[in-house]
């Protein structure tokens, strides 16, 4: 049984459109949404090819995990005083979502794609299409792949479990405020307070001097009381 052509092209078009939108859309929130759409297209593509378990996992990760994590990160890095996304950058308004070197990036990306497509096109004859196991076509890959993952690939599977745990713990540790940052914050606060104190003292001194300048002792004696009141 061969792959359903129209569905394959639909999945390919959806995932490609999503991928291009992810890298070209100005607003980062829209880019994250486009990434979720890309995940759906990719899921359809993989499902049509016949990798149903991988398709399910791809949909879970690419439309669920990655957008959720990235959106959370964007919320945490958005400055409440101004927009922190790609669309508007308060400091350098001339730079938009895309760096000025985008033609170079486009050239490199096109070169990469052309190279890969060229390799695929020129060495087509070397890739013999072997007989695809018929039971996988009839019943899908989920049951068999699950059995394989827990038997011959048990070690890598467990390794990925440990990796995910290490990533979660590591992310928490990295994102925590460490002592250096706390010290820096405290030093910054103390410096600001010291400057404020010095500024106030300087103002007091200037005010006192201006009050004394008019000259006669009667005024000078009256002023300190005045200042205490004010």
């Amino acid at each position: 049984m061969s792959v359903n052509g129209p569905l394959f092209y639909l999945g390919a078009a959806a995932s490609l459109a999503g991928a291009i939108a992810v890298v070209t859309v100005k607003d980062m929130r829209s880019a994250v949404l486009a990434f979720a759409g890309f995940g759906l297209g990719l899921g359809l593509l993989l499902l049509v090819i016949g990798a149903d378990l991988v398709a399910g996992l791809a949909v879970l990760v690419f439309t669920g995990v990655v957008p959720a994590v990235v959106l959370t990160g964007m919320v945490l890095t958005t400055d409440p005083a101004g927009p922190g996304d790609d669309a508007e950058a308060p400091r350098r308004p001339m730079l938009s979502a895309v760096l000025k070197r985008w033609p170079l990036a486009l050239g490199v990306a096109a070169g990469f794609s052309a190279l890969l497509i060229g390799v695929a096109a020129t060495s087509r004859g070397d890739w013999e299409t072997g007989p695809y196991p018929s039971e996988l076509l009839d019943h899908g890959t989920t049951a068999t792949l699950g059995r394989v993952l827990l038997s011959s690939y048990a070690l890598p599977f467990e390794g990925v479990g440990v990796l995910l745990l290490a990533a979660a713990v590591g992310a928490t540790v990295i994102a925590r405020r460490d002592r250096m940052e706390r010290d820096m914050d405290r030093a910054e606060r103390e410096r600001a307070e010291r400057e404020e104190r010095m500024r106030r003292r300087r103002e007091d001194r200037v005010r006192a001097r201006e009050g004394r300048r008019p000259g006669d002792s009667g005024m000078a004696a009256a002023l300190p009381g005045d200042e205490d009141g004010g």
Partner: protein
Amino acid sequence: MSIGVTHVLVVSALIFGAGVYGVLARRSLFGVLLALQLMLAGAEVALVGFARFGDASAQPLDGMALAFLAILAGAAEGVVAVALVLLAYRRHRTVHVDELDKLAG
């Protein structure tokens, strides 16, 4: 014309190319991160394509298992990358790659 390994590889190459463009051209670190995930997804499409149509199609589960594990590893990478971006933001108050140009401090 029936769908073969070349079709899948062309799609994979285009997704990978879009990811390369994003990594090089995006300003925001989050955009770069999404583009990296696109590159990873392109490679996964190629893995599944080879498993289904290529030389490995008589034994497709190896390629699919590799794609499965690669997707999980990519998810872990994304989580750590977001944590690093948060750290960079707290130290430098920006997530734009062109402003993060100090190597130390």
